[in-house]
């Protein structure tokens, strides 16, 4: 471990620069969407095998959220948009 410095130079990086850091798409638990439907959405949108899609769905159900995809901002926003079209609660966050 080390001690944090008193002052650091913060690089001038655009907060929304898609090349700065990858973004993660987070799906949150909701009490309405069916488990079977959520598995199907993960398989359909992201091409996951059924076992992986089921694992992600159960993670959402038990832990409240799961990261279902990641990448540059534009891709993450598109994934988020497609999840919203399917009625799932999805948000974005930086890695």
């Amino acid at each position, binding site marked *: 471990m080390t001690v944090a410095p008193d002052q650091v130079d913060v690089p001038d990086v655009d907060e*929304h620069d898609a090349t700065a850091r990858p973004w993660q798409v987070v799906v949150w638990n909701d*009490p309405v969407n069916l488990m079977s439907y959520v598995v*199907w959405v993960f398989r359909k949108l992201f091409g996951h095998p059924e076992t992986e899609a089921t694992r992600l769905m159960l993670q959402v159900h038990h832990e409240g959220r799961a990261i279902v995809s990641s990448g540059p901002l534009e891709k993450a926003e598109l994934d*988020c948009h497609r999840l919203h079209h399917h*009625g799932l609660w999805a948000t974005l966050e930086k890695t």
Partner: protein
Amino acid sequence: MTGPFDLTEGGIQLTVGADEQGVLRSVPTLLQSGDDAGGRLDYSPHPDDPAADAEYRELIGDDLTRLRREDRDSFHEFVAGEPGSPETLEAFMRVIGEARLVLADRLGIEDDGWEAEAELQSDPELALLGWLGYLQDAAVGVLSELL
């Protein structure tokens, strides 16, 4: 036959009775009320960053509204008895999902586990929520076979 859907040479056919067909015809009206299901139909991808959220909404524009309108058009035709493609059934399933979100919001459902309590009640909207869930699950079954 797979539950409420029949797989024919002409496509996928909805096989519910006339009364159930009438209930399904009322679903788009439920959605046209302008109810956003307590925000469940208008999620923000950047809930903690208004500037990023505004940029996103400018980028997406009214695409979500357009997609939902197309889904409802497909839903109308399918419920009217037209055989549909897998894409039609996907649209049907999404519209059903939207309706369930609206109903759940109206019923104040906020936590998992509401189904057990729902079985004890006879609220027509709860009954509709459950039946639409049955239809959606059956559609998932058909579409999962096609993935």
